[in-house]
Each structure stands twice: as structure tokens, then as C-alpha cells.
């Protein structure tokens, strides 16, 4: 069961391996620029945030942002490219594997790429900036990354499945994905929002992701409520993505 999904995932990993260095170098550039610009450029203007230096405060968010953005990008563009340009999805569909194999393989490819690229950015930040965390906190942090990458990989897969024009995917990234990420606490704590808004913002899965992962990495605290929001979203996103892809393929 799911041998087809594994074959597709394996294919994607083979292709990634061929350009691993350039991919990781490219993906590290953007968060590192943010880190240097905001962390060091604004160091004189921003004091500690929630009791930690700003450079330390923003590091978990940047790593998480890299992982989930990479998961979305890889899933959306890969699905679109294989469906509309290369038409390999059609080649897969005349073999004995099922549409579930295809979509699950693609979701896990996006998820793996997100996790790998997040790890690469983490390594660069840790090596170059001297930011250090308690290794005991990593497991909880990774749990957030895994669930977040799954949510964004599913969102990307849905975009790549439903959207036929590449510019529309670009618009979704600009209008939906980036605001969701930037307004959910990558560069500032959710406590900055007015009190009346705060609980609503925390119910947004991306806020649960960024706030929860930061607490997990910096303080070793696992918030059951935030984890539940993330896990529930990941599960719902996975089920919805599989159903949407199945429906699209039946058209």
C-alpha cells in the first residue's frame, strides 16, 4: 500500500539531491537577510522582546517561516508543473497507482523539502549568529515544524491542483500566504495585537504555529491548545487536499 506514493516521493528526492546545494543556498539567503537586516540593523531601536534579545526572539520564526514557505512553494509549483507543463501526472495516472498515491507522494515531498530547508536555515543561523537553544527543546519545536509544513504542503498542493495559470499561484502567495505568515508572529509577538483581537489571532493556525514553535524552542513549553489547533488543521488539510485532488482528476 502507498508504494506508488513512495515511488513519487523517491523521485522528488532524487531530483532534489541533484541540486541540493544550490537549493539550500538559495533558501537560506532570504531568512538570513531578514535576520541581519532586522536583528542587527534594528538592534539599537528594539530592546528585548518577551524577555529575550530580538535576534534570539526572531530566529525560531525565521526558521519556521523558511520551512513552511518551502513546503508551500515546492508543493504548489511541483504539482502545477507536473500537471500542466510536463504532464507527468497523466503518465502516473495510467499506471496501477491510485490518485491517492500521487497526492500523498506530492504532499510528503513538499513536507520533506520544507523540513530540510528549515533545518538548513537553522544550521546557518546557529553557526553564523551564535544564537543557542537548549537541545532538549528541539523535539517540541520540530513537532510544530512537521505539522506546519504538512499544512502548507497541503495548501500548496491544492493551489497546484486547482490553479491553471502560474501567475495566479504567485498572487495567492502574495495575497494569502505571505500576510498569513508575516502577521502571525514571525517578527513580533501575538501579544502586540489589541487584547480584543488576540484570542481570534491565536485561533489562526499560522499564529498557533509561529507562537507555539517559538515558545517550544525558547522556553521548552508545549502548549496543548496550540498543538491541537495545528494538528487538527493538518489533518483537515490533508483530508481536504486528497479529496480535492481526487475530484479534480475525475473531471
Amino acid at each position: 500500500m502507498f508504494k506508488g506514493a513512495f515511488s513519487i516521493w523517491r523521485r522528488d528526492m532524487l531530483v532534489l539531491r541533484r541540486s541540493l546545494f544550490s537549493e539550500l543556498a538559495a533558501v537560506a539567503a532570504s531568512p538570513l537577510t531578514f535576520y541581519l537586516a532586522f536583528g542587527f540593523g534594528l538592534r539599537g531601536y528594539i530592546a528585548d522582546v518577551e524577555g529575550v534579545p530580538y535576534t534570539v526572539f526572531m530566529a525560531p520564526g525565521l526558521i519556521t517561516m523558511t520551512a513552511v514557505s518551502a513546503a508551500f512553494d515546492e508543493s504548489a509549483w511541483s504539482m502545477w508543473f507536473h500537471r500542466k507543463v510536463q504532464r507527468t501526472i497523466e503518465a502516473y495516472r495510467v499506471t496501477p497507482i491510485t490518485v491517492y498515491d500521487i497526492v500523498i507522494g506530492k504532499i510528503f515531498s513538499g513536507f520533506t523539502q520544507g523540513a530540510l530547508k528549515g533545518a538548513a536555515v537553522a544550521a546557518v543561523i546557529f553557526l553564523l549568529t551564535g544564537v543557542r537553544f537548549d537541545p532538549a527543546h528541539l523535539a517540541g519545536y520540530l513537532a510544530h515544524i512537521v505539522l506546519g509544513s504538512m499544512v502548507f504542503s497541503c495548501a500548496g498542493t491544492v493551489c497546484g491542483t486547482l490553479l491553471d495559470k502560474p501567475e495566479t499561484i504567485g498572487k495567492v502567495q502574495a495575497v494569502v500566504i505571505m500576510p498569513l505568515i508575516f502577521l502571525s508572529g514571525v517578527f513580533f509577538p501575538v501579544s502586540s495585537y489589541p487584547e480584543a483581537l488576540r484570542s481570534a489571532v491565536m485561533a489562526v493556525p499560522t499564529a498557533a504555529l509561529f507562537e507555539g514553535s517559538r515558545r517550544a524552542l525558547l522556553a521548552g513549553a508545549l502548549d496543548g491548545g496550540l498543538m491541537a489547533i495545528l494538528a487538527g488543521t493538518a489533518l483537515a488539510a490533508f483530508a481536504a487536499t486528497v479529496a480535492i485532488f481526487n475530484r479534480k482528476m475525475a473531471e
Partner: protein
Amino acid sequence: MAAALSLRGITKRYGTLTAVDSFSLEVERGTIFALLGPNGAGKTTVIRILTTLLRPDAGTALVEGFDVQRQGREVRRLIGVVPQENNLDRYLTARENLVMQARLHGMGEAETRRRVDELLELVGLSGRRHDFPDTFSGGMQRRLVVARALVQRPRVLFLDEPTTGLDPQSRRAVWQYVESLKDSMTIFLTTHYMDEADALCDRIVIMDHGRMLVDGSSAQLKERLAHAHRYELQFRANADRYGAMLAGFPFVRSLQRSGDLFRLSLAGEEYLKPLMDAIGTDDIRKVCLREPTLEDVFIELTGREVRE
């Protein structure tokens, strides 16, 4: 002989357009079968239904006895598909493309290695096994797509316009592979090239507007036009004047002009004499009876109108 493919009353609609209309067909095992028709006739829809990519609105379709709607997975185990467009994976080498196909069919590693090497040799790409398809010519890419469709040793091979866009040498090469497969599988192809269907196929069906128009061997289809009294007339001079005369005769059923050469069909053999009496022999360079071609049959049945 048992049927490899069986369609009964297949209908497929896209909104108000009926692409395939109560289409029924049986194709015997071991046949090279061609489905011909102008653009939009419904050929690709029939192939997409048979390869489980599309669900019909009505009717049943069986491949080697398996229902395409209820037993899709079993059907896909038995078929190989060469689509109209090369859908190779450009990020995998030629060899990796075939290995991927073997994995999707659940083939073991040792069998995959053996089969992939054998196919690369067969299609003349073993020297380019580690190259990416983007670096191949159109003919080489097409041969690789054919090889990919054969990895799992299919019992039915679907070829949707397999040689469109290829140069004559590459077309002949694809024909050779297809002919060499004849004894081991049923081959179902669609094509716009009448010479291809004529040279390769045991049986031909011409369809249009989603319906079957005619069914038979190439010779049988041509025989249908044997009564059509087709002639070629070539003039030394005054071709325009003779063209106008020919167009005015009530017994000239069809007329095509190419320079000073006219191809026409008469309503009956008895009209040849009045025709010759009327035009005389002064300016005639050549007059001959023309054997019908498969293209004549196709045009006769589907009309001259260019389809979008």
C-alpha cells in the same frame, strides 16, 4: 478470437457537446487497430475512456475483460499508453524515466534493470541512457515514450497519434517498433496519417461527430470507393477554361485542382464519354483512372471542411 477491447454504447458529453455518441466496438486480441477521424471526432475521448482517464456518461468499456470504471487498477496493470504529447520527466534521465515507470508498476529491482536495459537497446537509446530528455530530438523523445509504455509488458498498447511532428525517418522507426510488437500485444492507435494506418493496421474504423462511420481493413475501405469513378486529367494549356467547364458538368461529383492537374469523380462510368466529347483532346496531356486511397475514403466520409 477473444476481444481485447469492447465498448458498448459509450457516450461522453462535455456540457452540450456530445463527444462520443453511443459508440460500440470490439477489437480482437493481437490486432493492430486504427481509429481515424478529423479533429474533434472523438478519438482521444475514446482512448481516454479506455485508459481510465475519463469516465463515460453511459455505456460500458472493457479492456481484456476488465471494466474501466469498476476495475480501473486491473485495466491499468495491462495497458501501456503513448499520449499525443511527450510527457517525459525532464528532470530524470532516459533510464530513470523507465525505472520510474517500472516502480509505478511494482516491478522488482532485478527485473527492472533487465527490462530497462533491453528496451533502451530496442529503441536505440542505450548510448544516451544517462542523458536528460530535453537533450533529445523529437524522434528520440518519442522512442523513449514508446519504450516507457512497454516497460511493464502491456497486453494492450494505446498510441495516440504516435508519429505526429516526426520526420520521415523517425516515423518509419516508430512504425518498425510497432510492427515488431504485433505478435505480443493488441495495438490501438489513432492517427491523422492515412499512410500510417494503411501500412500498419489490420483493421480501421473511421469516426466523426462521436459516431462510427465505417469499419474494415484498408482494402475493404478502399473498395467502398471502387465505384466512385475517380479520374485524373492534366491539360497542356487553358487549364482555367477547362476547370470552369468541368465544374459546370452535372455528372462531375467532386473536383479538385492542383495547377493544371484535375482530380474528379464522375456519377457513373457512362459519363466518361460525354465528358471527353465535351472537352476534346487538343489540350489533354494525361487522362487516367485513379485508384482510391485511404485518404479519399476519409475525405469522402468526413468531408472537406477544415475542423478547428
